[in-house]
Structures are given as structure tokens and as C-alpha cells.
């Protein structure tokens, strides 16, 4: 009932026996916090994590990707209900296409070797964005949710979820649809002249649905099967080009994902095995393309099949745990441009252990074997991926030190796309080292106050970075392994809350300092310059207050100055910006029925800003949300 939100809107601070939870919980966004934002896609929530740099290519339905501590989106695996979403074609997931309405938990996971809940390929990636939806949540008998959200610029969406338990079976279905006109006003500076105009070709229609069935062999063992399908059709408003605001490009396509997972736990074992099949169709249409046909239509279909199993054994007193696992993946990309579809067969093997001795020491060793059947040549890559972490906890204080080595394979686009692709690419490699100093406690009379704080210095060194550069002329780019970079910085997270009777309030501060350096070419004028789109400073502040049935939430987002290109000259410098979002809600409860009304005023100060130069974002906009839970 009531979903997973519980009786209060505010996240509880979990100080549990699991000693890592106090730090980990700061990298988790739960359902109640997601809903306070009135976000329409996962991308809009990513700035709430430290270390994450969002790249939004304009518009409410625009493409959104992220980088994490200077590592590109290709190093980040997006996991939904324990299965990694396919990134076969572009190497990155568009977070702007993932709805948030059914998500109960959104996590940023860097290292969790003993968990069987993340696919092996994801655990070997640089970072995981993991989502759990209501489909994998157990219900007592019946659960339902229906809602709608509408607002500025023609925003209208609706969503519904039903879940029913029948004996050992549980069935669930969800459906979400949304549309935007996307025609928001904006202004931009051209020289000394400010121009005010309206975004065109920013419309979006998409539909997303999931059906799932679970069979519980016992309270600790279940089989879960699901199908998710999505369809989308959207305009690409593109960058604002001076004197030429024509934008006619569109993207449309569909995605299908079938999954089957068996998971459970016994006295000494925790295990999961699963298989999936995904197919994504992407169509790009440019009706202004000046070729002989008078338009361009490119169609790509990617397919990915996976299978994997992970088994974890833990000793009697839990002082030693060991995990082994193996997985396979088979990926193909079909397009008219390929006579032989590019094909990749991957094998991932993982072994890990955790030992509680003078703290908590864990290590993970991954073996990744990739066979690329490339049109001009076949290539096999085998890499060993070690990582380890040491944690100590004492009286609320915690200390973590860790190291990870990760690689990302070049995507099919980077390898084969028209003249741009380069099938001689090798994997991009990165080493990450980090420490965390944390403290948490409950204090005050009757322990109404709670505090969690963490400071996390980090260092990342990346080589063979895969970059697109114009090599033949400005219209003909190619992909090369030329990049080398360093990034170091500190993430600071502070959380304090007060909870008494029917009044709760919390303040959450998240700040990332990140200093990135381009080390690609010592002879280049950009040598040791700050990497593009890497602000030195970024952060958020969230203040939430809830009294009885009413609540309000204030979110302040700051993104510092950053460069649009690697060369650190004034003409490449983008202004910093501050965004202020305010939301209110009212919640009524009657027996097991809950009705919630929310309103959000986003970008309260009507800032004209952009994450990516000339991909302008909306000014002040409103959103209203009504939802019913049972």
C-alpha cells in the first residue's frame, strides 16, 4: 500500500547494522524524493548526485547524458530492475527517455562487488546508475497508482500502475505516456545583441509500458519475468544557430526488453541468474538534408542478448563472503549502411570477496573478453579489471579507501558510423582512486535530529580516451584514441534532518569540486587545460519541510563556469548559473487510499541558461501533478 513511500514524505535516515549503509544511503534517491521534483525523466534527477555532470541537450524531452568524475557516459552502465539497458549503438543511454513514475529507488553505485543485484558487466563498468521499479517490489495483495502531470509548454502525461498478488504469483502492469510541445521562449546573446525567440521542433510524444509476473517459490526465492516496450517520436531542436533557426530533424523509434530472472537466498548462499533480450530501433530523419533525395532517413536496429549467473557464499559469522559469476552478451547492429552487421560477443567473469578483518576489506577481479567481428577485421580484446576497497567504521565515523580499474569498449557508432567510425579503436581505460571520510549520528532530545556527512576526495586517470575530432574538414570527423586526462577533486555531502511528531524537515547539501586536465598532447595549446564541460564547482541544496498533510521543497542547483571546448580561452567560457525550483504538495489519506496533489515552479528566477553551449533550456515553467495510490 502507499507504494514504498511510507507514511512520511521525507526519507528516513537509516542507521542500520549494515555499516556501509550510512554512506551508501546518501547516494540513493528514493521514491518520495523523486516525486518531490516532479521530474519527467531520470536525467532531470542526476544533478542530485555528487560527482555527476549532466549534459542536457535542451528541452524538456531533450537528450540527457552524464559524465562521472570526467569519465564519459560510455563508462556508466544504466541498470533497471537488475538488467543493464542496452548501449550497443551509441555506448550511452539517453536518460531523458527513462520515466521516473514507477521508480522506487535510484542509486549511484560505484563499487558493490558482493551484490548479486547488478549485472556483472555493470559491476565492471566505471559507475552504475541503478533503478528499481515497483515491478520488483513485493505487495501484500494489491497495489495501484494512477496519476497525471501537466504544465507549461504543452506538457501532458499520464501514468498507471497495477500490481496484484494471487497466492504465489504476483502480476504487475504499468503504462506511461507523455507529450510536450516544447515551444518554450528563450533568449540568447549574439555579440552585444540579446535576441528573444521561441524554441521550435522540440515536441515529443512517447509511450512506455511494462508487464511483469513473479512466482515466489518461497519467501526467499522467486522467478521474475518482464516485458518493457517503448515508442517515441520527437523533434530535435538542435543548437541555436545564429541567423538560421531552421530545425527539421527528428528521431523516432521503439525499444523492447524481455527479461527473466531467478533469484534467492539460502543459509549460506545468495544467488541470481538471468537472461534478457533487447531490441532498439532508431530512426533519424532530416527533411532539409541537401542530398539528391531531398531528405535523409537513417534507420538502425540494435539487438542484445545476455545471460548471466552470480553466486555469493558467506561464512557462518558473516566475516567472509565470496562471490563468483559469469555472463555472456551478444550484440548486433543492423543498418542499410552495413553489408555485414557489426557483431560483438562478450564474456564477463567476476570473482570477489569480502573479509571483515580490521575493518571491511573487499576486492573484485573481473575478466572481460570481447570479440568484435568488424567488417574489415575481427578483433579480440581481453582485459583484467581489478578493484578493491577498505572500510572502517567506528562510533559513527567511517573511512573508505578504494581503487578501481575500468575500461569501456568503443561503441558501434564509434567503430563503424559512416566515414566517422574508426574500426581500429582500442578500449578507453581509466583508473579511479578515492577515499571517503564520513560521520553520522542521531542527536538532540529524544534523538529527533539526524546528521550524515561525507567528504570524498578522488583521482581519475584516463588514457586512450575515445574522442571525435574533425580530421578531414569540419564536416568529416573521425573517432580516435587520442585522449589522456587527469581529474581530481572532492565531493562533499551533508544531510541533516529533524523529525518530531507530524513535523519533519531536512537539509541536504551536495557539492562537487572537480579539476580536470587535458594531458593528450604536450605540444598542444590545450595541454593541461581544463576539459570541456567540466565545471570546477557544482552543487545542489535541497530543503524539505513537511507538516501534517502539507509539504514544500526548495531545490537550488548551481553549475560553475566551464569551457565549451578544451582550449581555456575566454571565448570558450560558459557562464555559471543558479536554478531555483520550488514545489508544494498536499496529501490526503483515507483508510488505504492516498491522494496527492503537487505543484512545482521550476527555474523560479527565469534564468536563460544552457548545459551545452547553444542548447538553450526553458525559463520559468510550471508543473502540476495529481496522483492516487492504493
Amino acid at each position, binding site marked *: 500500500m502507499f507504494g514504498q513511500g511510507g507514511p512520511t514524505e521525507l526519507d528516513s535516515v537509516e542507521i542500520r547494522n549494515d555499516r556501509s549503509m550510512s554512506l551508501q544511503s546518501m547516494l540513493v534517491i528514493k521514491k518520495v524524493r523523486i516525486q518531490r521534483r516532479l521530474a519527467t525523466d531520470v536525467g532531470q534527477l542526476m544533478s542530485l548526485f555528487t560527482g555527476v555532470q549532466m549534459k542536457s541537450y535542451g528541452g524538456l524531452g531533450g537528450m540527457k547524458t552524464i559524465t562521472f568524475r570526467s569519465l564519459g557516459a560510455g563508462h556508466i552502465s544504466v541498470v533497471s530492475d537488475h538488467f543493464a539497458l542496452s548501449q550497443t549503438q551509441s555506448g550511452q543511454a539517453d536518460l531523458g527517455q527513462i520515466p521516473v513514475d514507477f521508480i522506487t529507488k535510484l542509486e549511484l553505485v560505484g563499487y558493490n562487488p558482493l551484490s548479486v543485484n547488478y549485472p556483472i558487466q555493470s559491476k565492471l563498468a566505471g559507475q552504475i546508475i541503478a533503478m528499481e521499479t515497483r515491478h520488483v517490489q513485493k505487495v501484500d495483495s494489491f497495489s495501484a497508482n494512477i496519476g497525471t502531470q501537466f504544465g507549461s509548454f504543452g506538457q501532458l502525461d499520464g501514468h498507471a500502475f497495477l500490481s496484484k498478488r494471487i497466492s504465489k504469483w504476483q502480476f504487475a502492469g504499468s503504462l506511461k505516456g507523455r507529450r510536450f510541445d516544447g515551444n518554450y521562449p528563450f533568449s540568447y546573446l549574439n555579440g552585444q545583441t540579446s535576441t528573444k525567440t521561441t524554441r521550435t521542433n522540440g515536441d515529443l510524444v512517447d509511450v512506455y509500458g511494462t508487464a511483469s509476473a513473479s512466482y515466489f517459490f518461497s519467501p526467499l526465492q522467486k522467478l521474475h519475468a518482464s516485458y518493457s516496450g517503448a515508442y517515441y517520436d520527437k523533434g530535435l531542436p538542435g543548437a541555436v544557430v545564429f541567423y538560421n533557426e531552421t530545425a527539421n530533424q527528428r528521431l523516432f523509434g521503439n525499444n523492447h526488453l524481455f527479461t527473466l530472472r531467478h533469484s534467492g537466498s539460502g543459509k549460506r548462499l545468495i544467488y541470481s541468474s538471468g537472461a534478457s533480450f533487447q531490441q532498439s530501433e532508431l530512426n533519424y530523419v532530416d527533411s532539409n538534408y541537401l*542530398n539528391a533525395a531531398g531528405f535523409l532517413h537513417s534507420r538502425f536496429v540494435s539487438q542484445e542478448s545476455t545471460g548471466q549467473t552470480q553466486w555469493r557464499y558467506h561464512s557462518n559469522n558473516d566475516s567472509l563472503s565470496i562471490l563468483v559469476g559469469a555472463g555472456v552478451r551478444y550484440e548486433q547492429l543492423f543498418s542499410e549502411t552495413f553489408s555485414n552487421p557489426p557483431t560483438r560477443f562478450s564474456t564477463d567473469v567476476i570473482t570477489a570477496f569480502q573479509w571483515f578483518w580490521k575493518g571491511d576489506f573487499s576486492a573484485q577481479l573481473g575478466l572481460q573478453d570481447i570479440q568484435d567481428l568488424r567488417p574489415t577485421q575481427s578483433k579480440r580484446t581481453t582485459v583484467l579489471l581489478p578493484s578493491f576497497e577498505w572500510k572502517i567504521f567506528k562510533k559513527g565515523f567511517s573511512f573508505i579507501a578504494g581503487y578501481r580499474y575500468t575500461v569501456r569498449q568503443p561503441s558501434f557508432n564509434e567503430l563503424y558510423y559512416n566515414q566517422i567510425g574508426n574500426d581500429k579503436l582500442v578500449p578507453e581505460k581509466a583508473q579511479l582512486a578515492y577515499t571517503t571520510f564520513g560521520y553520522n549520528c542521531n542527536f538532540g532530545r529524544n534523538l529527533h535530529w539526524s546528521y550524515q556527512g561525507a567528504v570524498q576526495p578522488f583521482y581519475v586517470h584516463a588514457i586512450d580516451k575515445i574522442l571525435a575530432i574533425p580530421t578531414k574538414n569540419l564536416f568529416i570527423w573521425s573517432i580516435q584514441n587520442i585522449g589522456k586526462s587527469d581529474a581530481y577533486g572532492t565531493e*562533499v555531502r551533508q544531510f541533516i534532518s529533524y523529525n518530531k511528531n507530524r513535523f519533519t524537515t531536512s537539509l541536504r547539501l551536495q557539492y562537487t569540486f572537480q579539476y580536470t586536465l587535458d594531458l593528450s598532447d604536450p605540444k598542444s595549446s590545450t595541454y593541461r587545460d581544463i576539459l570541456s564541460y567540466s565545471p570546477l564547482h557544482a552543487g545542489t541544496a535541497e530543503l524539505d519541510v513537511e507538516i501534517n498533510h502539507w509539504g514544500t521543497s526548495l531545490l537550488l542547483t548551481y553549475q560553475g563556469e566551464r569551457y565549451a571546448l*578544451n582550449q581555456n580561452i575566454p571565448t570558450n567560457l560558459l557562464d555559471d548559473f543558479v536554478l531555483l525550483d520550488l514545489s508544494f504538495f498536499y496529501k490526503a489519506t483515507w483508510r488505504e487510499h492516498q491522494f496527492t496533489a503537487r505543484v512545482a515552479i521550476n527555474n523560479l528566477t527565469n534564468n536563460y541558461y544552457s548545459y551545452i553551449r547553444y542548447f538553450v533550456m526553458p525559463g520559468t515553467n510550471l508543473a502540476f501533478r495529481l496522483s492516487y495510490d492504493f
Partner: protein
Amino acid sequence: MIFRLVFISVLAVAIVSCKKKKPEPETPAPTTLSHGLLVLNEGLFNHNNSSLSWINTNDHTVGNSFFEEKTNRGLGDTGNDLKRYGGKIYVVVNVSSTLEILDATTGASLQQISMVHNGTPKQPRSITFYGPKAYVTCYDGFVDVIDTLSLSVTQRIAVGSNPEGLAVSNGKLYVANSGGLNYPNVDSTVSVVDLSTNIEIQRITVGNNPGGVCVDSEGDVYVISRGNYSTIPSRMHRINPVTDTKEFTFSFDAGGMTRMNDNLLISYYNYNTSTSQIGLFDALTEQLSIPNYISMSGITTLYGVTYSSITDKIYCADANSFSNTGCLHVFNSAGIFERTYNVGLNPSKVLVFD
């Protein structure tokens, strides 16, 4: 201990975040254009950072915001060609789809022509002149005729697909049809337009992906076909302007041509080895007389070559790595290096003012 470490971390943040680079002072644009060089910097696609640099050849100072200072607005996205004709300067801006016309004495803006046809940007590429008309290749398969007095488009001449370079000889306009947007089925022809009627009268097959067009001191027309940047090489062809036939294909690598008196400077950038070369081609004997006429030791990415009979110097534009600002290297006509200027992003074309 914990709080000490926290304090050190915060202090480190504060110290490092204070590091800021001081911007170099900009040299203001001159009120009248003399004793200097005007350089067109293409900029980067979708960055609206095409620009004009002004180089004062007396004191060797450089200002990279010439156009913005003169007009209080940006040049736009991807400047592709820069020419002077009569008392006017013409700047072809490809992605912004505009033709900017400036006063050649003061640099002041005279007109901006929007190159959009029926709601579709025409994507202008190159410009040349004949009599009172300017001719602009547009990627939509036309050459636009512009009256240089009224500064308006008076006619559109249908040619091949995605026309690039163009030149006039023997009362005819020769237009290279690249067909680049039909890759891999690119065009291979040169359209011949009779300038008395402004009608295409013939197409001459030269080679895959025609780009630059140049006319020598005898009126012979030379065309570069750029191949496919890998297996099909980039070659120069000679067209007889009387018979309008391709007479010869030269066997050396050629990516660009610049007329220097009776010679052509043949530039070539090898995409596989990332090396450049400039050869001297004797257009009278039609021989590549000196294959390496200019030392490329200080040039990273050769992106444009200009010869000025006013200064008798050769100007080589260097795009560096395309995403950082470029340079203009100056050589005397014997190919001896003289000096380098730092200019804007992806410099390609130069105008010389005495």
C-alpha cells in the same frame, strides 16, 4: 583526525579553485582597413564562433573580434569563404546560411543576405565575381546570382549536387559539383555555365568529389577531385575552357590550389599521416617543378593557402587540432618562413590590405 582531513580537503578546494587564467588583451579593430590582413576563421560547427581576425602588419598585433566589433553581433556558424570585390568584402557563412557584405574601407556592415529558399537553408559555400554580379555556390544544387549594387539575389542557376568551388574563365563559370551529401555516391562533374545567359550548358566529368576550382594566368581551369579520403586519391585535373573538356589528370596528390602569378601552389594534407605539403606547379609548363616548396615543419594542420601579389607573400593557415585556435604562417614568395600570427579557430582564408 577526521575533521582535520576534512579541513585539508576544503582548503585544497579553495586554493585550486582560485587558479584562473588571465585573458590576453584584445587588439581593437581599426577604423580603416590598411596595412593589415583580414583572416576568416571558420569556427566549429554549431558553436556560432566563426570570426574575422585583423592583423596589423605594421606592429604585428592581432585582434580576433573584428566582425563583432564592427557590427555588435557575431559572424555566425562556419564561415566558408572570404573575398574582396570592388569596394566590398563578401563573407560566406555556411551553417548560418548568410552572406555578409562589409565595406572594404571601414569594415562596416553593408548588408546581410539570408540565404534561405522556401524555408530551407541553402548552405552557401564559395563566391566568385564576374562583371557586376557575384556568384555563390549553394549546397542545395544552385549557384545564386547576386547583384553587387543592389546586394540582392537576382537569379538561381541550377547546377549539380552540393556545389563547392567555382571560377570564371572565357566568359563561363566552372562549378565543382561535390555531391558530398550523397556519400558514398558522390558527384564527379563540373558544371559549365554560360555567363551571358546564366544557364548551365555542359557537365564535365573529372573525378570523385570535386572541390576547388582555379584558373591560371592563361585561362586554363584546374579542378581538384578529393576522392574518398582513403582508397581514391585526391587529384588535380585541367579543363580546356575553349572546348570544355578535361584534358589531363595530374598524378600527384593535390588538395588545394592557389594561383601565384604563373604558378599554382598545390597544397595537400594527408589524412592518414597527418602531414602537409605545398608544392610549386608551373602552370606554363604544367609540371610540378618543386614538390616541397615550403617547409611544413612548423605547421600542424594546413587548412588554407593564400598568395598576395600586393605583398608578394604566401599565407598558410594552420588549424592546429581543429578545436583550438589556429595560426597564420607567413612566407615570402620564395617559400622562406617569415613569421607566425595567432588567430582564431580554424583559419582558412586571408585578404590583404595595403
